[in-house]
């Protein structure tokens, strides 16, 4: 005797499962898999197969005739698929070869937990993301200050500027990653805020370059100036370059004036009046 079939919906698919419980099968006397001998007693075949009958099971006659598994009711329009519908999940009219086999179920795995176990939370590549999110929201990207000005950066050391440059590079990487993610997932928002943020970082980087270039040219000219300065002897070796004027004796001052004849203007040895000299220097510098 065939077991009653139950049509259920699982995960949006049409599934026929077999109820292994024999008592359920006996209560379903209106099943279309009932023996032919009982078909006379059976009611009109229903497309909704699972209908536990209220009739006692003793009313069903015993038969050893196997079920043909095929209904022989002829419809008025000879349409064998009459009433079979995907929309209201009637299921197929005849059992299929795989009807008794359950659909495979996916493994019960918490993907987030699995990812947490497999991915190093401190991996360096996480620095490409904001808080390990694909992209931050437009409001979050819009929350930023202004860029550094050149005047503020002039007070910074080389190391600070070097580190700030790298921080800017990392920030730009994050912005670009978020922009890439927005494009990939077709989020459709946040590009404007990301571009604005990027522009501010770029302005900071430009200011860093400005500061360093300016410092370089000033140093270049300052070296030329130092060669004319009686207090400074660049050839004296490390740590000996600068001798303040207060520690020079009169003879040394005169000597320094002789060695630097352009300096000798009166008794005082001030740092050279920078107006005229710096113009010469400026002409020599590559600006």
């Amino acid at each position, binding site marked *: 005797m065939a077991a009653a079939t139950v049509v259920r919906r699982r995960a949006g698919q049409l599934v026929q499962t077999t109820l292994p419980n024999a008592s359920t099968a006996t209560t379903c006397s209106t099943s279309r898999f009932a023996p032919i001998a009982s078909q006379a007693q059976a009611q009109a075949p229903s497309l909704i197969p699972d209908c536990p009958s209220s009739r006692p099971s003793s009313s069903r006659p015993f038969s050893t005739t196997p079920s043909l598994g095929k209904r022989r009711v002829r419809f008025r329009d000879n349409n064998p698929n009459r009433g079979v519908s995907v929309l209201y999940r009637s299921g197929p009219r005849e059992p299929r070869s795989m009807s008794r086999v359950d659909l495979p179920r996916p493994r019960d795995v918490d993907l987030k937990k699995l990812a947490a176990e497999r991915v190093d939370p401190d991996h360096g590549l996480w620095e490409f993301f904001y808080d390990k999110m694909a992209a931050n929201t437009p409001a979050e990207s819009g929350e*930023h*200050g*202004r*860029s*550094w*000005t050149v*005047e*503020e950066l*002039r007070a910074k050391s080389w*190391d*600070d500027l*070097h*580190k*700030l440059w*790298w*921080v*800017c590079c990392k*920030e730009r990487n994050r912005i670009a990653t978020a922009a890439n993610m927005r494009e990939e997932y077709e989020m459709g928002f946040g590009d404007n805020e990301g571009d604005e943020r990027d522009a*501010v*970082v770029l302005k*900071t*980087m430009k200011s860093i370059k400005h500061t360093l270039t*300016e410092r370089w*040219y*000033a*140093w*270049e*000219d*300052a070296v*030329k*100036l*130092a060669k004319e*300065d009686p*207090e*400074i002897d660049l050839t004296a070796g*490390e*740590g000996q*370059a*600068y001798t*303040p004027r207060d520690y020079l004796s009169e003879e040394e001052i005169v000597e320094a004036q002789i060695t630097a004849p352009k300096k000798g203007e009166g008794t005082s040895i001030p*740092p*050279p*009046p*920078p*107006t005229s000299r*710096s*113009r010469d*220097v*400026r002409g020599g510098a590559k600006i």
Partner: protein
Amino acid sequence: MRPTAALLGRPYRKLRLTTKDINKGFYKGNRTGSMGTHTKWGGYKIDYDKVRTYVVPENLNEFTLTPFVSQKIRPKWGDYSEATDKMGPRSPALYLKRWKEENGYD
């Protein structure tokens, strides 16, 4: 129908310039720069002075500055009235003066 005179001018070009648009010998490149030199036998010799090296600063993780400054902090103008050469922050005299005051060593 003719395009406007502005569009016919030389600097305007609707399509990007490719190597097919110009006589031979035109090298467009991809703005990456070379890493060495070609040898006359068709090989390539890598010049490690040309290979890009990126020096990561130490203790970058402990660095607290960000690319941004708070909007509440107003930018200030520097005072370079000491620079008599009218070169402002780029003044070499100012640089030398500061070197004497703060360093004077190397």
